[in-house]
């Protein structure tokens, strides 16, 4: 992708501001990346199971197959950097360090959930972890990300924002407005297109003119970068460039990461738009977990025994999250009127109960 490559080098043409190099991870840190990916997969499998048992209701969009994107990209961030995403948000939340318990409890609609049972699958939030949602309207989060980055710049905090979106979101007006504002005002934001090839059931070639999608950065004179989404190392490397550009030069980027989701768009997707062979082939050819595990074996960073232990721990953590969610209380019905308005407001306490 020549366009992307050419743009990517732009920051390197300014030697005075050249970014620090990507830190080389220790074996332990690399194993930890694998552990995070395994945890996401086992968490999602448990969520699918609970959904089939009707313990999770509503929509449930699983991240299985895309784990290396969230884990690789978030591993390049500082603790105080902001993360915001769309409705397929479980993987990003876990990669950001939110607990499996609070995430699963949210799926179960329990008061112990990360949004007190008011958000559900598509609306995870953790202000403490700078995880600013979980947003249900396709592309609707992209202007929010520009605003978060605007505040980071306004406050001179030095932090950056990473905003995830799917390949379907690139055709929303809000996305283009956000890109223009980010580039115009030099906001420290990285827009990451997780291109899993399908906007719900409509493949990229049936929904988007222009390939690769990262070319859309050109119109806004933004850096365009691409990465291989099954390879966590490649994601880390390419994201590092974008993050440095945002942190050191306050410049936005558009990163397109090719990935693939193994499950349906949501749990209610019959999957008529693609073949079983296609899915099986992709799993065989480029599974992010298997790819990284084999690499770590080869590099002697991991033994099979250690891997089995990781699997055991992650399955246990996912099971524990289900047990926690199941045993957590439902929200008290009177909490339905909580969290609407800021309590510290100067508003008169008496808000007439309209319609009662």
């Amino acid at each position, binding site marked *: 992708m020549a366009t992307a490559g050419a743009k990517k080098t732009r920051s390197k043409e300014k030697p005075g501001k050249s970014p620090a190099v990507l830190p080389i991870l220790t074996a332990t840190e690399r194993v930890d990346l694998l552990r995070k990916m395994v945890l996401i997969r086992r968490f999602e499998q448990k969520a699918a199971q609970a959904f089939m048992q009707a313990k999770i209701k509503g929509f449930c969009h699983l991240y299985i197959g895309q784990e290396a994107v969230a884990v690789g990209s978030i591993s390049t961030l500082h603790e105080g950097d902001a993360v915001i995403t769309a409705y397929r948000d479980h993987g990003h939340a876990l990669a950001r360090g939110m607990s499996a318990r609070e995430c699963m409890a949210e799926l179960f609609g329990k008061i112990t*959930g990360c949004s007190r049972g008011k958000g559900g699958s598509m609306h995870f939030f953790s202000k403490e972890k700078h995880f600013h949602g979980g947003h249900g309207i396709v592309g*609707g989060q992209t*202007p929010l990300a*520009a*605003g978060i980055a*605007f*505040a980071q710049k306004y406050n001179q905090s030095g932090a950056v924002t990473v905003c995830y979106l799917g390949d379907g979101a690139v055709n929303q007006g809000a996305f283009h407005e956000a890109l223009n504002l980010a580039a115009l005002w030099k906001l420290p934001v990285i827009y990451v297109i997780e291109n899993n090839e399908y906007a719900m059931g409509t493949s990229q070639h049936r929904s988007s003119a222009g390939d690769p999608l990262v070319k859309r950065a050109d119109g806004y004179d933004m850096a365009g970068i691409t990465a291989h989404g099954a390879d966590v190392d490649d994601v880390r490397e390419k994201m590092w460039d974008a993050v440095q550009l945002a942190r050191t030069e306050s410049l936005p980027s558009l990163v397109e990461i090719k990935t693939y989701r193994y499950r349906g768009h949501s749990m209610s997707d019959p999957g008529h738009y693609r073949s079983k062979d296609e899915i099986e082939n992709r799993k065989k050819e480029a599974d992010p977990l298997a790819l990284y595990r084999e690499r770590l074996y080869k590099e002697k960073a991991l033994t099979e025994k250690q891997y089995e232990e990781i699997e055991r721990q992650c399955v246990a953590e996912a099971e524990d999250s289900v047990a926690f969610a199941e045993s957590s209380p439902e929200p008290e019905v009177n909490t339905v009127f909580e*969290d609407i308005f800021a309590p510290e407001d100067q*508003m008169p306490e008496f808000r007439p109960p309209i319609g009662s």
Partner: protein
Amino acid sequence: MAVCTMREALNQALSEEMERDERVFLMGEEVAEYQGAYKVSSGLLQKFGPKRVVDTPISESGFAGLGVGAAMMGLRPVVEFMTWSFSMVAYDQIVNNAGAIRYMSGGQYSIPIVFRGSSGAGLQVGATHSHTPENWYANVPALTVITPGFPDDAKGLLKSAIRSNNPVCFIENEKLYGFKDEVPDGEWIVPIGQARIRREGNDVTLIANSASTHVALGAAGKLAANGISAEVIDLRTIKPLDLPTILASVAKTNRVVIVEENKPFAGWGAQVAYEIQHRSFDHLDAPIERVTGLDVPQPYARVLEQAVMPSEERVIAAAEKSLA
């Protein structure tokens, strides 16, 4: 106490709040170098600089959403829509993001943002530029909706809106920007959620807001000449609604005419009528009348547009019907 226009009163509120709190910034189309399409932000760029008075591209969805994101981080944006008619382009950001993020996150985020700008019909700008959307936004549970009709209220309520930690839709009316009246000097706060009785009377209550209050006051003057004493309530805030003031007036006059520029179906007056009949049924001596914008897209020709707008004549006729 000095006499000033609505636009000057709004300008004072913005300037004083930006002076008071560095987290407050103004953003919108033509707010900075152009000095505001309606001159509300005149001089603010010179006073506060481009970091805090920010010209945006014509990109309502983008900059409204950007404002919400900034508010999630603790800044206090004032986002100007050149007119509220253009806010339709940003509807998703206002409803789903400003209006729901606090709730959806279980109360983790406050969204201290003010969306403000002109609205209203009567100046022959046609269907796309003439909306009075207070009822649309009042239908969103977490949004506060303010519609000032006088310079002193405009100043005091805008200062309250900027200090609110909740998302506020502050809907001005284009017809009123040049309206002059007394405005208290310096710190002047009008609490959100309180109606104001602009004229006292005993025979019939006229409930109005924004520019419609001026129509109601004009009608009340003419009714007085015919021996009818009308009380005029300016709601000032559509949501939260000040029911105690409304119900006290109904208990006194027993008759109600609602005057609203927005369209009739589910206009805010429909809700007010419901609340009155539900809570004060025994106080009513006649059916509640409504004078609204007529149920057609806003026409251009003067004679057509005037027929669509609430008028003193229609208010007088409604009051007389109520008293018949």
